[in-house]
């Protein structure tokens, strides 16, 4: 095992330890310390309004492949879907979910049926509310449009892996006059969402969805652990800059380069 592999393993072990520690000791204590993200405040209001008006929420969890790192943000989308079903369970129209990946579509239907079963409302589960919209990026975007343009739908939440095709979905959402909240892991798509979505989630904000939608104390604990590691990375970057300014960067590379 190389030194860089060892550092990677240590990184994951410490990260896991911190999440477990904060979950065991925190129990939602940190919820009050969450930074205010206007997008989630608007989303909670939209969920409340949808329940009151008997309208529908639409969530799209992108087209991230389950066997690739893109699946992580799709799992965040699934957590958000679960949170929204729980919040909107008393409404007349159940939330509708779309995806652009076949294996994710199975997970979506599983999440829908499982959540309705958990809340004792399985009769409200409609298998057609979990839809595979298309297999290619653009067919997925176009296949999602009927759900976006549906008159019964009042909010669109896009959390998952998207490419530039997401602009077609957010543009349709904007035209329908409904709330469009969107976040992704893809950098070009984030730039597009900044311009096209009413409430864009930039950077790691999308990974905080579970914590803000009260998906469980582990989501809040993982935010706390991420903050600690973020500060650690900032310190390492500043140290790197100072070493570069002092002209010691090459000496450090020579010293440790062979180990990595």
């Amino acid at each position, binding site marked *: 095992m190389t030194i860089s*592999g060892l550092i990677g*393993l240590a990184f*994951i072990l410490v*990260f*896991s330890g911190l999440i*477990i520690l904060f*979950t*065991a000791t925190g129990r939602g204590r940190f919820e009050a310390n969450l930074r205010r993200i206007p997008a989630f405040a608007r989303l909670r209001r939209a969920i409340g309004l949808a329940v009151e008006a008997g309208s529908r929420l639409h969530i799209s969890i992108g087209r991230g492949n*389950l*066997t690739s*790192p893109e699946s*992580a*943000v799709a*799992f965040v989308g699934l*957590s958000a879907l679960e949170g929204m079903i729980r919040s909107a369970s008393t409404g007349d129209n159940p939330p509708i979910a779309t995806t652009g990946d*076949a*294996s994710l*579509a*199975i*997970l979506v*239907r599983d999440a829908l*049926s*499982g959540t309705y079963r958990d809340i004792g409302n399985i009769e409200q589960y409609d*298998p*057609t509310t*979990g*839809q*595979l919209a*298309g*297999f290619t990026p653009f*067919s997925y*975007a*176009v296949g999602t449009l*009927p759900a976006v343009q549906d008159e019964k739908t009042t909010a669109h939440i896009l959390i998952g892996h998207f490419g*530039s*095709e997401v*602009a*077609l979905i*957010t*543009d349709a959402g*904007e035209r329908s006059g409904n709330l469009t909240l969107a976040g992704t*892991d893809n*950098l070009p798509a984030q730039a*597009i969402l*900044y*311009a*096209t979505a009413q409430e864009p989630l*930039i*950077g*790691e904000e999308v*990974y*905080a969805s579970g914590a803000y939608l009260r998906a469980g*104390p*582990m989501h809040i604990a*993982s935010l706390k*652990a*991420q903050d600690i*590691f*973020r500060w650690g*990375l900032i310190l390492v970057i500043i140290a790197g800059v100072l070493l570069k300014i002092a002209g010691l960067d090459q000496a450090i590379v020579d010293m440790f380069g062979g180990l990595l």
Partner: protein
Amino acid sequence: MNLKLKSPISTAIAIGVGVVVLLGYFFGGDPAGELTTLGLLRDFLLQGAIVWAAVAMLVGIANLASVHLGKVRADEEGSFSFILLLSLIITLGVGLYDIIKTHTDQQLNFQRTSWIFNYIQLPIETSLMAVLAVSLTYAAVRLLTRRLNLLSAVFIGVVLMLLIGAVPQVAALAPLFAEIRNWILQIPTMAGARGILLGVALGTIATGIRILTGGDRPYRG
């Protein structure tokens, strides 16, 4: 801790497989570069996942067909759904014919499937790409009316600068403009992108750990 162990067997399998694959990345090879038992197990599990993802595609097609069949029956946007189902059946038939032809002729023969892809699928997707360009231009203008603040103004300003600077004649006429454009691309853009990617990486690791520890379960079992 809020471990949702409602289906302990599926949870145990998922966590076990996840841990083996993760450890396989760190202990999967020996110093000579040969795969260890853990490495072989990791590859076997990952190959299995790829096969299952392919099987899921069949389930996905069935899901797509059932949703649109329901729409045709309910006469809800029925015409579009009918076209989709008809296209699905025709493409499936052509694909099967090409597969049979390949086996009977003992040589690759996917001309008909390629024709569908090259002359129907590709032009449609290219047209959508063109629509996207118009949508994005419109969205950029709308951004100024909807969210007029310093960040939006900087966003639009930089986009315009980069687009104008990409024109070769502009670079030839105004070299300083081209230099500023390159500096924007290489320094602030790269720094911002790396910052965002670090945040995304931390979020990805946190999500993975939540799933590995059973704190987050995207599956039910």
